[in-house]
C-alpha cells in the first residue's frame, strides 16, 4: 500500500497500454489496418482470377468490368470487410441482410452509427475521408442524395435493366432501393388513431414524435408531406404540412425527440410517424415488453411513398466489397429480404413477372390500393427550399 503507490501505478498504466495496443489492433483499429495505402488495388489481385482486362475495383462501373459478380465478391473478400452506415438491424430487415451477406461471401460487415440520418452519413464520410474508417456505401433519402452526387462512384448492378429509368441515375451514381408508406405507429394503450388529424388531440400531449428532422432525414421529410396531404396540400405544396406540425409543436403534442427502438420501448415516444417497415418491425419486438404496437396508413391522406437511394462512396476504403454488397442487395435474394422487412424493393415489378418474388412476404405487407404519392426530384428540391426557411419553429419553449 506504500511503495505500490506511484511505481505500481506507472507499471499498471504501461501494461494496460501495451495490452490494449496488442488487443485492439484486432478489433477497433481493424478498419484502420485496412487503410487505403495498404490495400493493394484490385487490379493487382484480380488478374490471378480474371482476364488481364480487369479494371481496378474503385473504377469498375459494373460487374463485367471485373469479370463477373463472383470476381467482384472474391476481390471484396480479399479486402476483408465492408463499412456500412445507418443500417439498423430492424430497418427494412437490414439485420437479416447483413447476416446473409456475410454468410454467403465471407465478407465482414462493419455497421457504423445505425441511427444516423442521411445528413449524418454524408458528414461521416467527409469527416473520415481518407482514414480507412469512412463508410463505403450510402443509403440516403432523395433530398440529401441529390445534393451530393459528387461523392459517389458510378456503378450499375447486374439487374440494372429491371429498374425503371425514373428510379435510377443514368450513369449509375445512385439507384432507388426500397420504399414503404408513411404510417402512424402507436401504443394501443393510448386509444385508436386512424387519421393525421387525430394527432392534434389534446390527450396526446407530449407523445408524438416525427422520425427525424425533415431537412436531414427522408422519414421526417415525408412525414411532413403526409401531414400536408391530409390538410389540403399536395406534392407541390407542403406548407399545410409545416403549419400542421407547427400547431402540434405549439400545443406540446410534438416532442423534439428522434424516435428509436429504445425510445419506443421505454415509452418516451408512444406515437411515431415513420415508414411501414419501421413501425411494423416494432410490433414483434414490443410484444414481450407488454406493449401492443399498431401501425396504420392514415385514412385522411393519400399514401406517401418515397424510395431511398443506394450509392457507393467514391472514396470507399473497400471498393470491391462495396460493389459486392450492391450486387447482393439488388439480387433476388436481397430484394426478397427487404420484402420480408415490410419494404417494397425497386425490382418488385420485374420479380413478379419472373415469378421470383416471395409471395408470402408481399401479402403480409398488404399495400394500400390507392396509388401512392411520390415526390419527383423537382418537387423534393422545392419542398426542401421551403422547409429551410420555415422549419425553424421546432425549438423548445
Amino acid at each position, binding site marked *: 500500500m506504500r511503495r505500490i503507490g506511484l511505481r505500481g501505478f506507472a507499471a499498471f498504466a504501461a501494461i494496460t497500454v501495451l495490452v490494449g495496443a496488442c488487443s485492439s489492433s484486432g478489433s477497433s483499429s481493424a478498419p484502420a489496418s485496412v487503410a487505403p495505402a495498404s490495400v493493394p488495388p484490385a487490379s493487382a489481385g484480380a488478374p490471378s482470377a480474371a482476364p488481364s482486362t480487369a479494371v481496378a475495383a474503385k473504377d469498375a462501373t459494373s460487374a463485367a468490368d471485373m469479370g463477373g459478380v463472383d470476381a467482384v465478391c472474391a476481390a471484396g473478400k480479399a479486402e476483408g470487410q465492408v463499412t456500412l452506415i445507418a443500417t439498423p438491424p430492424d430497418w427494412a430487415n437490414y439485420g437479416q441482410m447483413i447476416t446473409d451477406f456475410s454468410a454467403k461471401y465471407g465478407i465482414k460487415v462493419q455497421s457504423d452509427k445505425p441511427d444516423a440520418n442521411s445528413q449524418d452519413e454524408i*458528414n461521416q464520410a467527409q469527416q473520415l475521408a481518407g482514414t480507412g474508417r469512412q463508410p463505403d456505401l450510402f443509403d440516403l433519402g432523395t433530398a440529401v442524395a441529390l445534393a451530393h452526387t459528387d461523392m459517389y462512384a458510378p456503378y450499375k448492378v447486374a439487374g440494372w435493366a429491371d429498374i425503371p429509368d425514373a428510379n435510377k441515375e443514368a450513369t449509375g451514381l445512385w439507384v432507388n432501393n426500397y420504399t414503404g408508406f408513411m404510417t402512424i405507429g402507436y401504443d394501443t394503450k393510448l386509444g385508436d388513431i386512424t387519421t393525421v388529424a387525430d394527432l392534434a388531440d389534446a390527450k396526446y*400531449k407530449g407523445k408524438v414524435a416525427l422520425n427525424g428532422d425533415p431537412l436531414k432525414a427522408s422519414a421526417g421529410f415525408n412525414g411532413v408531406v403526409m401531414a400536408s396531404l391530409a390538410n389540403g396540400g399536395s406534392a407541390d405544396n407542403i406548407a399545410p404540412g409545416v403549419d400542421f406540425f407547427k400547431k402540434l409543436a405549439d400545443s406540446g403534442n410534438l416532442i423534439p425527440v428522434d424516435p428509436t427502438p429504445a425510445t419506443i420501448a421505454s415509452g418516451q415516444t408512444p406515437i411515431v410517424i415513420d415508414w411501414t417497415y419501421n413501425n411494423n418491425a416494432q410490433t414483434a419486438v414490443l410484444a414481450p415488453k407488454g406493449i401492443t404496437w399498431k401501425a396504420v396508413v392514415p385514412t385522411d391522406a393519400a399514401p406517401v411513398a418515397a424510395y431511398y437511394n443506394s450509392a457507393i462512396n467514391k472514396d470507399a476504403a473497400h471498393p470491391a466489397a462495396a460493389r459486392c454488397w450492391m450486387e447482393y442487395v439488388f439480387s433476388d435474394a436481397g430484394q426478397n429480404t427487404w420484402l420480408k422487412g415490410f419494404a417494397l424493393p425497386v425490382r418488385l415489378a420485374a420479380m413478379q413477372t419472373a415469378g421470383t418474388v416471395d409471395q408470402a412476404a408481399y401479402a403480409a405487407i398488404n399495400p394500400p390500393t390507392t396509388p401512392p404519392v411520390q415526390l419527383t426530384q423537382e418537387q423534393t428540391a422545392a419542398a426542401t427550399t421551403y422547409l429551410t426557411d420555415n422549419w425553424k419553429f421546432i425549438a*423548445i419553449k
Partner: protein
Amino acid sequence: MTDLPVSAPRPPTAQTVGPASGGAGARRLRGLGNYLALVPFHAYVGLFLILPTLIVAVGAFTTTEGQFTLDNVSRLFTDEVYVSAFTRSIQLAVGTAIGGAIIGGLLAWAVVRGDPDGLLRQVVIAVSGVLAQFGGVMLAFAFLATFGFNGLVTILFKDVLQVNILTDASWLYSLTGLAVVYTYFQIPLMLIIFLPSLDGLRQEWYDASASLGGGAWSFWRHVGGPILAPAFLGALLLLFTNAFSAYATAAALISQGSPIITLQIADAMQSEIVLGQENVGKALALGMIIIVSLVMLLYALIQRRASRWVR
C-alpha cells in the same frame, strides 16, 4: 554533517539554486536555456488550444471563399434563431447557477455543521465528487429512467398515487426540464467548490459575535455573509460557465431542433443544407468564448479577494 559541494553558504532562494559559476554573460545564456525548457509545454498548449481558438476566431470573420466579412458575426444579432438560442443559453445558465448555488450552499452548510471527521461528511463529499463529473449522456438517461413516460417517478405517480401530473413527459424536453437536469450536477459542484470556504469560517468568530450579543441572523448578516460573499459569487460564476458550456446532456435529451447555443454550434458544424454555415458556427463559438472569458475574468478578480479569508 558532510561538506556539501555548494560554493557559498547563501540562503537558498529560487534565483540562487544550483552551483554558481561564470559571469553575467554565462548567466544570461543559462537564463535563455532555462526558458527553453518551457518550450515543450507552451508549444503543446499553443498547438492544441491556442491554434484551434485562433482558427475559430479567424474563421468567424471569413466567408467560405476566404474573404473577410462581418456577415457571420452580424447574423448572431439579426437572425432570430441565434438570438433566442443565446438568450435561452444564458437564461438556463443563470437560472441553474443560482439554483445550484443556493441549494448546494445550503447542503454545504448542513455538512459543515456536522462532525468534521464523520462518515456522513466523507460520503457526501465523495458522492458529490462523482456526481459533479457525472457525464452528460449518462445523466440524461438517468432522468429518462426517472421522469420519462415509463420512468419510476411517473409510474409511481400514475399507478400508486393515482395522480396524473407527470404523464405528460414532454416537460423534460422544455427549458424547465433542461434546468432540472442541469441543476442535478450544479448542486454537487457547488458543494465541492464552496465547502472549503465554509470550513474557513472559524468557530471563534461565531463565539465573538455571540458574546457581543448577536444571534445567528446577526452573525450571518455582519460577519459570515460578507466574508463568504466573494467565494459565493465566485462559485456562482463557475456554475454559470459550467452550465453555459454544457453540450452532452442537452445533446442526449434533445435530438431535434437546437434550442441552446452549444447545440446550434454542433448543428452548424455538421449541416450542409445552407452553404457557409460552418463559419457561422465559428462565429457562434466566438460569441461563446467572449461571454465565458468575461465571466472567468470576473471570477479571477473575485478569487483574489476571496483567497484572503481562506487558508
